[in-house]
Every structure is written in C-alpha cells, then in structure tokens.
C-alpha cells in the first residue's frame, strides 16, 4: 500500500477569463498543415479535371480557391484559439474532423450546385456555399465548447431532464414534423428547420452515460433469479429499458429506421462498456432479431427496404434505382477512383443518385477516390473512435468514461451504418454520413460531439462534483454538527 500524498489538482472555476496561459500545440499544427496541403491538392485536382472536361488548357489552380481559403482560415483561427486558451486537450480530433469536413467541402463544391438553394437576405447560395457556412459554424461550435466547458455537472446532474427534453423533441417532431421520403424527419419552428434526430443522439448518450454510471455497481453484480435462470437485475434496468423502448417506438412509428438502428446499437455497446457482460449483448441481439422480424411483418416500409436490399434489380428504375446507381458508382471508381470531378456523369443535368449529397456521399467518394480513398475515410472515422475510447480510458470516473465512449461510438457507428447501406451490405437506412453529408443539423450535432470530446479530454479538468444526494445530506449533517 502506497500512501502517496500528492496534492490534488486545484479546482478550476467553470469559466476562466484571467490568468490564461497559452500552450503550444505542435502536433495539432503539424496535422492541420497536412490537412491544408491535402485539401489544396484536392482542390487543384478538382479544378484541373473540370478544366480538362471543359476542353480548356491545363491550369494548376484550385477550382474555386475562395471557399477553401475561408475554411482553412477558420481552422487556423480555431487552432490559435486553442493555443491561447492553453487547455491540455486532445490534438488529433480537430485535424481528423477538419479533414472530413474538407473532403465534404470539396465534394459539395463538385456536385451540381442546384441540389440545394437557399437565399439569405437576397444572397443566393448553392450547395457548396451553404455547406461552407455550416462547416464554419461547426468549427466555431467546436472551439467554443472545447474552451468554455470545464465541468460536466450540467450534463451529469440533469440526466432525466435531458431524457425528458429528448422525448419531448421526438413527440413534437411526430406531431408537427414534416415528411421526407415517407419518414417524418424534419421539424420546423419559425424560421428554423432541422432534423431533431441528430441532436437526439447526443442527448441519448448523455442520458445513458448518466444512468449507467449511477447504477453500474448494481448492474454488474446483482441478478434477478427466475428458477435456475440468472437474469439481469430487472428493477435497475427497467427505467432505462422503458426510456429506450419509448424512443425506439416513436422513431419506428416515424419510419426513421436508420436512427432506430443507431440508437439500439449504441445502447448495447454502452451497456457492454459499463458492465463487461456479454450476456447483455446476446440478450439484446436476440431482442433485435425478434423485433426486426416483428417490424418486417408489421410495417410496409421495413419490408420494402429489405426487399430492395435483397434484390434491387427486381425494380431497377423504381425502388432499386438509387442503390443500383450507387453500386455502379463504386464499380466505376474501382481501386484508385476516377479522380475528383471526373465521376458521376450527369443524366439530364441531374446526378443519377438524387440524394447523393445527403444519403450517398459515400458512393460519390467511392467513385471519385476509389477503394483507396474510401478506406482512408473509414480510417478517419476509426481515428475519431480510437481517440474517444482513449479519452474514456483516461477518465477519472464512470460518467465521464461512458460519456466519452458513447459520443465517439455514436459518430463511428453512424458512419459505418450508412457506409454499409451505400455498399448494399445491410438494408439502406436514411441517415447522414457524419461531417461529410450535407445538412446543418447533422454537421452541428457532430460538432457538439467533437467539442464535448475535446473538453472531456482535458487532463486538468475540474474533478467530478460529488453526487447530488450526497451533497444535500452532507450539508444537513454539517449544519447539525456531525454525528456523535
């Protein structure tokens, strides 16, 4: 037994204004330099290909250098802000996310700009410009979260409030939402519209982390015995199961199958991370198989999706059209790809895949960058997951560990679900490819995830607050003057 009496870290106030000590971040700077160089070369490649396709002579200048310059400038500012703030946060997450965002920017600039048109105050913006706007907001959000958030008690203490807010958001979407492709996805409140599911995935991870960290000791060791069977401790699992069932139920009624799958997979993963019991996972998978079969019989949408996945060539110009075009795109791309700007020949002025910017960016990248490029992109998602799990392993308490693991896994699992859907590995479900797909809600929600992960990775972060009930009773006892 070593009685090492090292002084504890001094408690930091939630937000520090004075006494800031800048701290150099060489690794982040070096990685961001590579990101800038890569994106610049990518932009040149795009510009040269487009110029060659238009029959012009070869020019080694970027396609449109202004958006890329703005994006890289914002990254530089974010890096400098981190340096000035001087927190000891992770130095890999921001460059990895920036690379994904930059690839998204190149892709959105390259796709037909008419896919999205929005006008702000008389200014008409196309796909690439709107995406640039969202990416800039995302970089700002990441920077603010990673610098300002010093304590996680606002997440930890109000888990039921967060869960209630999430369910409320779902119900609101169900009542007032608008339909997209037969799924009720979009909520419009005044001038704002968005996909609440994206925000909901973050809220769900916060709730699960709070709940599991509170009941982890009980979940790990106690059993409910029914005859010879040893089942998990149902009284402790029930509230969480109800919450999850409610969320899944509403999501399924809304026909948002991708989100339902994502929620369920992340729920099982976090349960395993918290308890290290394989029995939970097996039980969950059995439930999943039973539930999927039930849904297959009950819902026409599920049946359609599975049938399309099983044999898209049965209806090649109707239901199976998008997935067949995606498969063709991957085939055209081959191993090395056609090069940025050389893929996706337009059919009548439109890309062959209508939802290429939201649901199928992975197929577009598969065509233009080939197997090699797509593997690199999957590698970037793996880097995000690895960093999240490292932050979780280094965390001092259960809540922070589960939160970090959950946040990283939700992004990673989402990426792999939609990538597998594009590849016809699993039935296609309409969710976004994190950070790469077009869409404000998706990009901002993932920015929240990355920002929180950065904040959690700070080694000098404020120690966790005492459990709430404890504090209240302790104050009472101190007032009485101790128990004799």
């Amino acid at each position, binding site marked *: *037994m*070593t*009685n090492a*009496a*090292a*002084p*504890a870290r001094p408690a930091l106030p939630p937000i520090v204004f004075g006494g800031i000590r800048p701290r150099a971040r060489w690794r982040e700077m070096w*990685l961001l330099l*590579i990101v800038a160089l*890569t994106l610049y*070369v*990518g932009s*040149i*490649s795009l510009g*040269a290909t487009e110029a*060659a396709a238009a029959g012009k002579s*070869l020019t*080694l200048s970027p396609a449109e250098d202004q958006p890329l310059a703005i994006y890289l400038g914002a990254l530089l500012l974010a890096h400098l802000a981190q340096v000035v703030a001087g927190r000891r946060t992770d130095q*890999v997450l921001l460059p*990895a996310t920036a*690379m994904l965002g930059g690839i998204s920017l190149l892709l959105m600039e390259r796709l037909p700009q008419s896919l999205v048109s929005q006008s702000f105050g008389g200014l008409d913006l196309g796909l690439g410009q709107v995406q640039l706007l969202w990416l800039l907001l995302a970089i700002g959000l990441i920077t603010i979260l990673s610098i300002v958030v010093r304590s996680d008690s606002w997440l930890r203490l109000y888990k039921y409030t967060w869960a209630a807010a999430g369910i409320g958001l779902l119900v609101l979407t169900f009542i007032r939402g608008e339909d997209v492709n037969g799924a009720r996805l979009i909520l419009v409140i005044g001038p704002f519209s968005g996909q609440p599911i994206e925000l909901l995935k973050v809220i769900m991870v916060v709730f699960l982390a709070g709940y599991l*960290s*509170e009941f*982890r*000791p*009980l979940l*790990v*060791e106690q059993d409910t015995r029914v005859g010879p069977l040893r089942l998990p401790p149902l009284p402790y699992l029930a509230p969480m199961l109800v919450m999850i069932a409610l969320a899944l139920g509403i999501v399924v009624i809304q026909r948002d199958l991708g989100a339902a799958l994502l929620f369920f997979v992340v729920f099982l993963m976090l349960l395993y991370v918290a*308890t290290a019991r394989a029995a939970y996972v097996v039980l969950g998978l059995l439930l999943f198989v039973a539930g999927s079969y039930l849904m297959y019989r009950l819902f026409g949408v599920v049946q359609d999706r599975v049938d399309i996945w099983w044999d898209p060539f049965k209806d090649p110009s109707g239901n199976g059209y998008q997935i067949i075009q995606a498969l063709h795109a991957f085939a055209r791309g081959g191993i*090395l*790809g056609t*090069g*940025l700007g050389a893929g996706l020949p337009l059919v009548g002025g439109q890309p062959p895949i209508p939802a290429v910017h939201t649901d199928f960016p992975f197929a577009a990248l598969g065509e233009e*960058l*080939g197997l090699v*490029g797509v593997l*690199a992109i999957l590698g*970037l998602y793996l*880097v995000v997951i*690895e960093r999240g799990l*490292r932050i979780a*392993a280094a965390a*001092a*308490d*259960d*809540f*922070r*560990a589960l939160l970090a693991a959950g946040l990283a896994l939700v992004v990673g699992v989402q990426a792999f679900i939609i990538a597998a859907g594009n590849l016809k590995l699993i039935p296609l479900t309409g969710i976004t490819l994190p950070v790469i797909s077009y869409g404000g809600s998706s990009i901002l929600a993932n920015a929240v995830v990355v920002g929180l992960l950065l904040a959690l990775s700070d080694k000098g972060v404020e*120690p*966790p607050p*005492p*459990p709430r*009930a*404890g*504090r209240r*009773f*302790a104050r009472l006892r101190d007032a009485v003057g*101790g*128990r*004799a």
Partner: protein
Amino acid sequence: MDPLILSLWLIRFAFLALLYLFLFSVVRILLRDLRVAAREPSTQLGRLVVVASPSEEPPVGSVFALDAVTTIGRDVNNSVVVEDQFVSSEHCVLTFRGRAWYVEDLGSTNGTFVNSSPVDGTAPLGFGDELQVGNARMRLERAHR
C-alpha cells in the same frame, strides 16, 4: 502519353498520397500515446481522493492508491488512517472483487456512508462515488492511465 492526362493522374495520386500521409502521421501519434500509457504501471485498481477532512489527517486533496483490499480506520495499522474522533479504529474495508468495488462496514460506531446513504453491511461502490467515514469524505476514482 499525353502530358495533360499524365499531370491529371499525378495530381490525383498526390491527393490520395497526402490523405494517407495524414493517416500515417495520426497513427504514429496514437501509437506513441499508447506506448506511453503502456509504460506507466497500471497495476493500480483505483484511487481514493480525500475531498473533505476537518481533522486535517489525512489532508484534503491527498490521494491513496488502492490495493484489492484497503482498510480504513483510526488505528495506525490501517491502510488509510483517518484521524477523526468519529471514526472507529477499524472502521470499514474497501475490496475489489472481480468487476466492482465494495465497501464493507466493520461494525463502526458511527457508520459508513456512500453518497450519504448509510451502508448496511456491504454496498457496491462506483468510480465517482463518495465515501464518508466520520467527518472525512473521500471519492473513489479510476487509476490514472
């Protein structure tokens, strides 16, 4: 070969190569981090951080590395000695069994509390939970990794 097409090819491959250069740099950093983490001894099962201690022994902020069995009490033979008038000489014992931490009250006069609810016999303990013996409060934390 047409120089135009050749240069287009070269730029394309330069982009892919740079993507992999980025991944390579990242992976090198990740590996270095992992090696540093692996070099540090990770035999620790957890740490006990003193949050409040009116008697100044142990002082607030001191950190105890925990073995699988850690005894807490006023007697000097305990692993963690708490010099407090409300602590019994053999107050409680912290044990790590398989997957989780437990605290067992050893029949102390004033009881042991986890998050301020009294421990009746043995109670499970999670990382981040607060343990109170007498007037001293201590938080169980995961070991540094």
